[in-house]
């Protein structure tokens, strides 16, 4: 690792690549006959954990919500902790694909595809939890406005109903964005596949894309518009998730700092997950040419910046509970620090405030292993944050007579670990069957794509 300090500047794509080499390298991962051994192992672990989750869900359906640790007063427990954690993870994918596109950050090009896939799969995990938490999950459609014999409507003034709309819109728009981005690459796979079945399947998914100039013209406009639409959406989703808490009057929830710091926390946790995925992926598939140190460093800087915003949020929360003069707010903060859940609070501070400070050093930002460890710790920290917010606020509120404790059961853990497994399994399927890096966007980065100065000037105008 002697080259670490050699240059400050690392390109977004290693020199020497051409249209053909970029296309062949990325599409061969999908089209090669051989499935690598680590794929089988990784997918197998994910699939086994998914089966565990299905068992836990089966028990939940059969015996009811009592198999979880939720109780009075802690009615939300793991289901909501994990829901917020997963949906927050999703936000980084949309940030990379939409906001960095609008900001013309061309380094996003090689990470946006799998970050969007991560968003999609994370939102899928998130979506499971509120439905499982309903008690009678088979009646989940009651959440939607539909003509029914009871003439009932959802409660439009409830943040929980807003959340249904926010999350389902987010899932739909993420899927559309991802699919639109995939169309030209599906056409590439269609044209390069040797097997008939692959040609037919990719051909149908590519919908007859032929790369016509007029099509590209509309396509780019559509992509830009989708990015413009997704940008306020991603901010709104975690804001609405934070409304689930802030609209309630529980001490520790009823706070105006929640929407901004939830959004920052979502991006923080999401980038940690992108790094957690990207670092092993680039070395397993030898993609260091495309996901370079530049990407890792930039993501590390975003991690540091959002980590500082989140730290500011925690500080303001503590300050406001003192400044409010409300004894319940003061007690809530004191209880978080010294009450029965003190390890969660101090673990959260350690993971989310102390750990990212290492990212001030370029040596650590440039070390894939170091970054990976920090990203894992931040993932844990973001989970602890949601645990602290949900559980410590609920378990001791206004009346000491209604205080209680929350302990997750083995079914809580099986469901949580199971969704991680399900996420991993979906991700492995994605990298085997779809290009994990946007091929057509990578083509725009290679030197061959440079035009004569006259045309470049015309572009500037």
């Amino acid at each position, binding site marked *: 690792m002697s080259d670490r300090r050699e240059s400050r500047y690392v390109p977004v794509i290693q020199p020497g690549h051409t249209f053909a080499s970029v296309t062949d390298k990325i599409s061969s991962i999908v089209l090669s006959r051989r499935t690598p051994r680590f794929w089988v192992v990784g997918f197998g672990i994910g699939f086994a954990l998914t089966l565990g989750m299905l068992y836990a869900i089966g028990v939940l359906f059969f015996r009811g919500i009592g198999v979880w640790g939720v109780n009075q007063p802690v009615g939300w427990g793991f289901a909501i902790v994990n829901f917020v954690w997963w949906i927050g993870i999703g936000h980084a994918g949309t940030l990379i694909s939409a906001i960095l596109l609008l900001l013309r950050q061309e380094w996003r090009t090689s990470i946006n595809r799998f970050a969007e896939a991560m968003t999609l799969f994370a939102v899928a995990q998130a979506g499971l939890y509120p439905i499982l938490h309903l008690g009678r999950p088979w009646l989940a459609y009651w959440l939607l406005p539909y003509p029914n014999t009871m003439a009932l409507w959802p409660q439009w003034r409830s943040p929980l109903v807003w959340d249904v709309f926010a999350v389902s819109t987010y899932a739909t728009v993420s899927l559309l964005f991802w*699919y639109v981005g995939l169309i030209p690459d599906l056409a590439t796979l269609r044209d390069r596949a040797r097997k008939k079945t692959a040609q037919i399947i990719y051909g149908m998914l590519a919908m007859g894309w032929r790369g*016509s100039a007029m099509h590209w*013209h509309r396509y780019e406009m559509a992509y830009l518009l989708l990015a413009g639409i997704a940008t306020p959406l991603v901010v709104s989703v975690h804001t609405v998730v934070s409304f689930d808490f802030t609209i309630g009057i529980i001490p520790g929830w009823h706070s105006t700092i929640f929407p901004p710091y939830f959004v920052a926390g979502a991006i923080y946790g999401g980038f940690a997950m992108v790094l957690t995925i990207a670092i092993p992926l680039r070395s397993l598939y030898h993609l260091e040419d495309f996901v370079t140190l530049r990407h890792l460093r930039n993501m590390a800087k975003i991690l540091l910046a959002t980590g500082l915003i989140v730290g500011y949020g925690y500080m303001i929360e503590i300050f406001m509970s003192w400044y409010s003069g409300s004894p319940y707010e003061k007690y809530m903060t004191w209880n978080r620090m010294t009450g029965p859940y003190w390890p969660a609070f101090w673990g959260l501070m350690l993971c989310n405030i102390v750990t990212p400070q290492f990212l001030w050093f370029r040596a650590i930002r440039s070390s894939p292993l170091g970054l990976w460890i920090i990203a894992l710790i931040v993932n844990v920290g973001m989970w602890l944050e949601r645990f602290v917010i949900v559980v410590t606020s609920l378990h001791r509120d206004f009346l000491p007579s209604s205080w209680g404790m929350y302990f997750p059961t083995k079914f809580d853990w099986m469901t949580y670990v199971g969704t991680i497994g399900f996420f991993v399994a979906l991700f492995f399927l994605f990298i085997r069957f779809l290009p994990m890096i946007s091929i057509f966007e990578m083509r725009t980065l290679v030197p061959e794509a440079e035009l004569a100065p006259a045309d470049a000037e015309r572009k500037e105008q």
Partner: protein
Amino acid sequence: MSAENARQPDSPAPPERPPLYGLVAEFESPQDLIDAARRAREQGYQKMDAYTPYPIHELTQALALPRTKLPIMVFIGGALGAGTALLMQWFATVVHYPINVGGRPLASWPSYIPITFELTVLFAAGATVLGMLGLNGLPMPYHPIFNAPRFALASRDRFFLCIEAKDPMFELEKTSRFLATLGARVVSEVDE
């Protein structure tokens, strides 16, 4: 720079030959394609299209592509979404199932805003994707351009320019010769 004609003049032509779609020239670099498109337009050709492995903005000017109607469609989609959401919530809380909660107004519009925003986004995004696919005529199971030799490379590293037979200036011999002068690697005829 060889003119590779699929239709050999002296060999017996098959009886049911489909009509000609156009002439396709294959280029090796984006710059060659842009220059060729520009020269073809200067010559007066209008019915043509370029096929590239990635979007090239310069082609918009070189081919004088029209502005797309997509933004207005997206705006209409978003407006429909906002209208749907507001109307639905207002109808539910004021007309269909009014409940007096602590004497507060039935049409409590501030609490309608989050859902209105989300449905605006949902409808606008749907309009963007459906509008883009619809304007592009996708999904399209068959298109004559796929008959062009080596057209599979249009999604890899080659750039194609097609002058269609329905162009008023199109003359097989003349257009073929013209395309060959533009630096095309291969010029070939493509059937409908």
